Every structure is written in C-alpha cells, then in structure tokens.
C-alpha cells in the first residue's frame, strides 16, 4: 500500500515513460513535465547553469526539499534517505544555512492526531539529518498536521503529496 501510494504520487508529478518508473517523487532533481499545476514549486525544467550554487533554488532543484511518507507512516525508506543524504551533504557545504523542517499530513485523519503525526514526521527527517552530521542546532521543526496541504485535491495522489517532510531554508543561503 505504501509503495503503491508513493508510486502514485510520483506519477502525479513526473512525466510518463522513463520517469514513471521512479519510485519517488524526486521532481526537483530532473527536468519533468508538470501534471499538478497547483504545486507552485514544480516549475518547468530549469536550466542548471543559471542556478547559483548555495541558493534556495540550488537546494530546491538540485537537492530536493521534500520527502514523502506512506499512509500513517513516519519512517524513511531508502528513497527518502537518498534525498536526505543530498540535503545533509549540501548543508555541510553551506554551514551557515539554517532550516525549518515542516511535517505534514493528508486530510484523511483528524486534526489533533495529524498534528502529532506531522511532528513525528518532521522529527524523523531531523534525526536522520543529524545522524548524517548536520548539527541539531541548525534545524527547527514544526508540525502543520493537515493544515498546510501542498495540493488541494481530495484523491489518493493529492493525499500522497500532502504526507511529507519539507526542509525549508530559513537563512544562510546565497542569494
């Protein structure tokens, strides 16, 4: 179930064919055609040469800012871990950067339980980054429960996208 939903989420974000075989929605890492227009950060392919190293855009496009969770899960699978390894490496290259990790849940749960679940997810991301050597003092976490959906839809694909841990740079990036 978890795998299926993750694949569904990936399919929602990625172009057909080769990309659809990817198990995770790593949309920021590759040029991809967008099929979920509501998601603001999924923009048409960006030419890499125009991205300044150490910038917010660099992090978003070349590293990936979100990991996605299975239904009711806050565990990180190997795809999540790959994204977080890239985040940790990037953060070690730019040691003044501070991040806020937001934990989010889909709308198919009740408000208070989802706040707890979101906190569990944000913390899972934080702990993994810390285990890779990122200082805990550079990381804040917040749970938005089901209050901040990335996409507005009420279907499996939208729910899968809305179950995420979102690493947001709050300061220290080059502009």
């Amino acid at each position: 179930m978890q795998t299926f939903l993750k694949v569904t989420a990936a399919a929602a974000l990625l172009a057909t064919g080769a990309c659809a075989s990817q198990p995770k929605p790593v949309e920021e890492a590759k040029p991809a055609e967008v099929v979920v227009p509501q998601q603001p950060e999924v923009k048409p392919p960006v030419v890499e040469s125009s991205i300044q190293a150490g910038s917010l855009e660099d992090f978003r496009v070349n590293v990936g800012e979100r990991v996605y969770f299975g239904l009711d899960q806050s565990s990180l699978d190997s795809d999540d871990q790959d994204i977080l390894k890239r985040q940790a490496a990037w953060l070690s290259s730019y040691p003044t950067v501070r991040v806020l990790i937001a934990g989010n849940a889909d709308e198919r749960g009740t408000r208070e339980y989802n706040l707890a679940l979101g906190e569990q997810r944000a913390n899972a991301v934080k702990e993994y980054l810390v285990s890779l050597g990122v200082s805990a003092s550079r990381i804040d976490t917040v749970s938005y429960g089901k209050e901040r959906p990335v996409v507005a839809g009420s279907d499996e694909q939208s729910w899968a996208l809305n179950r995420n841990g979102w690493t947001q740079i709050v300061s220290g990036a080059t502009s």
Partner: protein
Amino acid sequence: MTQRTINSIRHFLAVALIALGLAAPASAQLRVRVDEGNFQPTPIAIPDFQVTGANGDLARQIVEVVRADLASTGLFDLQNPASFIQRDLTINAEPRFADWKIIKTEGLVVGTFEDLPDGKVAVSFRLWDIYGGELMRINGEPGRRLTTTPENWRRIAHKISDSIYQRLTGEDPYFDTRIVYIAETGPKTARVKRLAIMDSDGANQEYLTSGRSTVLTPRFSPSAQEITYMSYEGGKPRVYLFNIETGRQELLGNFPGMTFAPRFSRDGQSVLLSQAQRGNTDIYIMNLRTRESDRLTDHPSIDTSPSMSPDGKSIVFNSDRGGSPQLYIMNADGSQRACPSGGRDTACRITFGKGRYSTPVWSPRGDLIAFTKQEGGKFYIGVIGTDGKGERLLTEAYLDEGPDWSPNGRVIVYFREARPGASPQLWSVDLSGRNERRMTTQTDASDPAWSPLLQ
C-alpha cells in the same frame, strides 16, 4: 449501526421527529419523550405575547426565537398561528382547552411583554397542558417572569425556550449557550483560520482573532469566560488561553515542544493538553493556578486528545499504541484501573471495532463518549459507553469530525465536509441520531465547541 440504518434515519430527518408523551390518559401530564422510537413531534402553540408599551416588534422577535429554538430540537411541531381559534388569551385566565384541542395542540405558551419605567423589559409566560387541562408549574411557580435590558432580548428568548424545553422533556436546558468555532476563509492551500463565537442558534456571530495566525481546536472553560485553543502565533504551535471579555490571549505554560489538543478539566482549575517532543506526543495536565504541569502518559506512541470525565476521575484519550488510533481510558491520577476487557492497566482500550477512532469527548452526563471514526473511506460521528459497549454511529460523510456535546449531553455538534473538496460546515445531531441539522455560519467553519449554560 449499518449503512442502511443510517440512511433510514436520514429519510426520517426530512419529516422532523420524536415522540410525545401524550397519547396517554388525560390525567398524565404532558411529557415529551426524547428517546422513544415513535417519531411524532409534539404539537405546541406559542401565540404572540400580549404587549404593554411600544415595543411590540421586540416582543414578536422574542417569540420567533423561542419558536425557532424549540423547532430546532425536532421534538416539537410549532403550530401555525393562523390556525389558532382562541384569540383572546390572557396570562391570568385559563385558555379554552376545547379550542386548542380542535387544532390538536398539546402544549400552549401564553406570555406578556412589558416596557418597564427604568428602560428594561419584562417577559412573563405560562405553560398549559391542553389535554391534561392544567397549568404546568415551572420550578414550583405558576409561570416565569424575566427582566433585562432590551439589547439582551435574545438571551430572554433562549431562557424561555430553556424553561419550556426542560419542563416538557425533563432534560436539562441548552439554548442559552454559545458556540465557539474556527471561521475558515481562503483557498485550501492557504487557509485563513480565525477564532469565532456565536449564540447557540447562530445569532451574534463575532470574530475573536484577526486571522494573522492560524488557530485551531477552541474549547470553553466551565465558566464560559475563557477559551483554550492552539495557535501558530509567532510560527510556533502552542496552547493559549483567551479571555472572551478582555480579548486577551495568554500563552499557556513553558513547554519546550509543540503543545496542542487542549481541554479544560471539569473544575476549570487545569488544562489537559498534549506536548510533542522529539517525535513523541504525550498527555500532560497543567494547573492554572500554580502553572505546574504533570505528565500523564509516557509512551513512545502518539497519545493525544484528552477529555476528562464529569467526576474528574478519569480521562479518555486517543492513542495509536495498539497499532492504529483507538480510544483509551486512564485514571486521572495515573494509577492502574480495572479494564472492561479484563485485567488491570494504566490505560484501558475501549474501542475494538474496525476502523480508526479519535477525538474522544466525554459526555457531560458521564455515561457516553463521543468520537470520530474513520473506516472504509468515510468518517462517522459516534458514541460508545465508557465500558466500550454499545457503540452507535450517528452520522456519516466524506469527513465528519470533532464532536462536542451540548451542556445537557443531548445534542452533538461537529463539522462536516459533505463531499471530497467540499468546504467544512458546522452540523448538529441529536444523541438518538435523529435531527441532523446544518448550523449557519458566515464563513466556512470547523472545530465547534459548546459552552456551558450561561449564568
């Protein structure tokens, strides 16, 4: 409750409902039974009040609010004034019972409205049992007289409704109350959520916060003067206290982690809440006088949504320690208790049905717990005995969430998203599962909480 049962209840709702007490002999006093399966609303008549002074409009408005309150219960059939035969009613004389029997009235309210020399207004009323042929005394008195300032007229109306409802049903009153909720505006991905308050019938809607910070899950103190809720003020989700009179907001406690899911203890001296720290949510109780908090659960799973029993001895809460969200009861002092399913434990699971259970709220009467249940792509509002027996589902929708009780434990308010993508609205349902009604709010609305009876 099966899908079919729920549907058949829905069909009844169009008709308005409930039993009467009065198919009985004339010697039995009029009594409206709220639990009978014979869905026949009791016909009652509330003619316009006799007016002394120049404030006839106010008198008519008061009567309209009383009629609307009583009709909203589904228990009464408010008769059309055009059908009334007797037009010369006075408060001090017996009505002509025969005239009212012709139109099958069972209960008759006769009232007067006066402008007083000091600028206040006074309303008096009496309640007649037509088939019993007698006056129904209210608290031992032949009638009731209420005095207030004219701008307070809606509260007079609700108090009249409360008296009539209480006298006819034997249930405690609940109309003279308020409901606090979250007013929602804006797109789903950038929702603005404000604290809002209204009378129990939806009048006097007012916003209490600006919407600058997202606020969630408000709940009343037992005095109805304070609200506790969660706010993202300053970006950090924390539990706050809000004083309705002063509008002052105060951070509750000095917890290092996120605090949420607050609810007052029954004596109003403490607030139960959840704190999440390092990925783990547990339940705490904070004493409002000493500002000291005690940790009530210590478990690696999520423990949240605590609600205290009316006697203050037990707490029902939501935990996923069994693998999915379910309801548990613990002693308020953390000691071991005898579990209904056998054995002793510090937390006894009470839900074992299929599905996920959350948002438990202990009934003011003490015998039931209302909850949200999620199963098979639907959400339900239901109730279950504190021993885990007698689960009944009262409502069903794409999303039905967050029940709270009227102070008499008779009506449950909750919010609903009727279909995928539909916006949230407030609804209420009778404990019997009948009389599902939408409550009108100025904006989309969620997280309703009912106040105690106002003083």
